[in-house]
């Protein structure tokens, strides 16, 4: 598939556009912007208390690889007592303050709003394309809306979770790995027709 990108720099995000088979779009990927993010890590022995506090504030945290949402926030479990929390439309600093208030001395908050490229991947062939790199069972019997995983995909570490049954998945990919991830995704989705948008944000 290298001919697909022969002329493009492997260090830049693929430009928005249609890749692969023309006339059909089996997979779409759309960059999500305007999203603040932070890691929330429970302090020693405080996981249960942190979950209780967050739940009381309207964000029902789950200590598992699950996505949960509430109070305008979405939390994704990335490890025991660890979450990546997202908030649409807020600034990194605002999200951090909110979480710090919520967590008080139960957890540590670190702004990650600039750490990841967040992508929504969906389409009728999304699963077929994703299994070419995701070694987590995506079959509806095993992975459903609300399920999340942190795992390497094509040598790139990602956290992703399923959002609905379209199916659509949201991927958080380390910024500097995002060009490589998109090259893999485009190569994998090309046979189904792949539409990419939102990468031309500069």
């Amino acid at each position, binding site marked *: 598939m290298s001919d697909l990108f022969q002329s493009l720099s492997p260090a830049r995000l693929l430009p928005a556009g249609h890749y692969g088979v023309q006339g059909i779009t089996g997979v779409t990927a759309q960059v999500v912007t305007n999203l603040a993010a932070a890691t929330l890590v429970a302090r*020693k022995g405080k996981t249960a208390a942190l979950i209780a506090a967050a739940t009381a504030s309207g964000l029902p945290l789950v200590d598992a690889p699950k996505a949960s949402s509430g109070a305008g926030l979405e939390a994704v479990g990335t490890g025991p007592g660890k979450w990546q929390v997202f908030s649409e439309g807020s600034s990194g*600093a605002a999200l951090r303050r909110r979480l710090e208030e919520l967590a008080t001395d139960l957890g540590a908050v*670190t702004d990650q709003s*600039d750490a990841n490229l967040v992508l929504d991947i969906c389409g009728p062939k999304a699963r077929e394309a994703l299994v070419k790199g995701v070694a987590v069972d995506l079959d509806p019997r095993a992975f459903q809306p609300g399920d999340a995983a942190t795992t390497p995909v*094509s040598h790139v570490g990602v956290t992703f979770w399923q959002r609905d049954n379209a199916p659509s998945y949201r991927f958080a990919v380390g910024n500097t790995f995002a060009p490589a991830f998109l*090259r893999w995704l485009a190569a994998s989705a*090309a046979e189904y027709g792949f539409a990419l948008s939102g990468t031309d944000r500069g």
Partner: protein
Amino acid sequence: MTRLSAGGLIDRSRTLSFSFDGKSYTGHPGDTLASALLANGVRLVGRSFKYHRPRGIVTAGSEEPNALVELRSGARREPNTRATTIELFDALEATSQNRWPSLDVDLLSMNQLVSPFLGAGFYYKTFMWPAAFWEKVYEPMIRRAAGLGRAAEAADPDHYEKATHFCDVLVIGSGAAGLAAALAAGRSGARAVLTDEDFRLGGRLLSEQAEIDGRSAADFVARALAELSSLPNVRLMPRTTVFGAYDGGEFGAVEKVSDHLAVPAPFQPRQRLWRFIAKRSVLAAGAFDRPIVFPGNDRPGVMSALALATYATRFGVGAGPRAAGFTNNDHAVAALLDAAAAGVKLEAIADVREAVAPALAARAKALGVDLLTGSEVIATSGKCLSSVTVRTPKGVRTLSVEALGVSGGATPNVNLTCHQGGRPIWREDIAAFVPGALPVGMAVAGAAAGHLTLAESLADGTALGAAAAEDAGFAPVAAPAPVAGDAPNGLKAFWQVHAKGPAFVDQQNDVTAKDVALAHREGFRAVELLKRYTTMGMATDQGKTSNMAGLAIMAELTGKGIPQTGTTVFRPPYTPVALGVLAGHHRGVDFKPSRPTPTHQWAEEQGAVFVETGQWLRAAWFPKAGEDWQAAVNREVKATRESVGVIDVSTFGKIDLQGPDAGRLLDRVYINMFSTLGVGKARYGVMLREDGIVMDDGTTARLADDHYVMTTTTANAAKVFQHLEFCLQVLWPELDVCLASITEQWAQIAVSGPRSRDVLAKLVDGADVSNTGLPFMGALQTTVMGGVEARVFRLSFSGELGYEIAVPARHGDALMRAIMAAGAPYGITPYGVETLAVLRIEKGHVSGSELNGQTSARDLGLGRMASTKKDFIGRVMAGRPAFTDPDRPTFVGFRPVDRSARLKAGAHFLALGAAPTTENDEGYMTSVAYSPILGHSIGLGLLKRGPERIGETLRAYDPVRGGDIEVEVCSPHFVDPEGEKQRV
């Protein structure tokens, strides 16, 4: 032409053209290259490995040892491709291999004439005289004669991909047993996968004339496939070979997505690697028809009886105008009779037994086939087969035939059961090895299990498919197994005809029965030694059809019996796998991710030259028109030292540490103290491995009482993070510290040089960055560029006044541009990692070439940093005698005695006049640079008792680059040794 007038699963309405050795032929969709060649009367298709003997097609499957061709040409040339597995496509191009000048006239077949010398192991006894001749004469000669096909001429133009599929039940093989297993598993609702290496599902049912549930086998296959296709939980995967059974229910498989096309469809891979993760598996891989070893058994035209039948029934091809059989079992007799019924002119079947099943005898009679019982084939003739000589109880008979179908019985295809160490078990009643200990979760059904009748295969498949589904948590749907009424095959174990003439065991590697005897004579009796001495079973077919006969012959010679003799080990892959598909997407620039820094695009605009540092791409230098790299670097260094320079240092690992015990943790991982560091301060730290060797270094700043940020070297970012997690989770779980990697979150840019404060002052939103407001090693949280959150650290790697400014990554590019604008009045100069290296070498700072995993803090002159007030990782082991040996090479600087000479990193130090020996080796140069400030080359290195020897002159020995110069030992601090500039 030997295409039969009717029948077969080929589409006679369409014609495909193809070429073999440049000659054009035609075939039909549904043909393999082998069936199409046979249909065109082509019997000679290859040459053997050692003697270059003529070779023909012997099987109809992937076990084929002989019919190897080069498929396609140029960059797509694929050597050693089995004609029996190539699905015919239009304009297919194939060429014979391992022959010169042509397949028909191969001069290397002269090897046969000297074959008396070339017995097994002959290499080991010869080619030793004279000694120097091996590499120059003998070996090149052997190499040219050996080998098979030729590699492609250029990079593979096709692409490959890898995918993972999870299932409850993986069924391998789609014959009677596999279909039945898939049906039983599929009906239960389990996620089932049915794979077959063949392009058509059905296994032997595609060529057997059997009845199942009162209907034809073909009808059974069609109905089964229709039902399976209708089940959403079942996935049918033809053209998919399971090649390996790995730990934990993981299977490797290759799907040939486009091999049946001239070139892959746009955006389709040529092949796809599947990793199946299966809760349970049912191996239904069938059995191989095994040969009988007899003189002349390698002549093109001699083939497997079942293959001969398959060509007739599935492909509508007679393997020759006239054919005969040579068997020891009823199954093969029946198959040969099927071939006769399909139109093959079968003259006779020689069978070693006294009698065949009465029904078969009657059928033979009806078909006009002579049954020669109690008979053996003792010779053959013709370049390609023209006649066979049969020794019958009534005397010797010669049959004029072009094809001979041979069967010595069935060898269950147990390969995949052995990949995890299982050893097959001998079953005397069927004279075959059957699976022994199985991989966890695997069951074996049908012929692969040694259940050789169709009835057993169907019953097995049904039962094991249901059981597998049940084990995976699905309630089986009760349904009776399909019924077939075939008889056992009455095999009489028979391996070898004792008669005169070369009789081949391994046809590809030219191993004869005589070679087995020689191995026996010379003591290579264990099967594994037999294999290695004779190369039996080491060819591209891995002896699938031949090994049994070879070891049976050895068993006969040792008198040990076959079970005691045992088989050689089966290893993955089941059939050879293209390297391209195992690599998938990861080749060329996609071999590993390319990580750009936040200012990559800006650097591109500046015309930077990039360099790979690990996965990162970093600017190496920024040449101006007409500059070579040295000129650019000299300019960058000077500008930085004289005014101000700027570099993106975002690649450093950055770790956020929060919690009341963060200081305590840092005290334990760094040799120096961090718990006492003031808030708003940064400190350089060195961390050791537990064995006392330096692991990493970097600066850590304290942002709040319970909040530090650590930087690590670019190379060690992941390793240090893992190390900290180890400390917190394993060593000291009582410590209350939360970690987060912030490498991606923050862009970090270093501004250095006397004017750097002026630049910074223009960027910060009013913060006091004066020498008092932000003193050396200060850390400031502020905003820049009108409200962008920033962390400013006053650090200096260059030795100049300097700052590192960190902003959230999205602002990295803007920050760089703002810095450039702010610095314009001072001629701010972007620099790359080359200049970074010069600056640090001029200052005598250690870096990757010194932190090479072999040096202690003391070696690097950093020993005094170690706190004596606390324990830290590596402290105890760093006290071992070798580490405190005063003779240990220690960090020091060097300059060339002749200042115009260039130092070279990697040169070793010798005392002047000392002989260049390992004993006299006193250390080596770790890093060098040309210092435009000093106007000469400078170096850092490790020298025995280095610091004591400042002023001494030594020899820097560098024969690999023809360099051998005198150097002067000096302080490693070349520029501003007192470190005043950074503090102003």
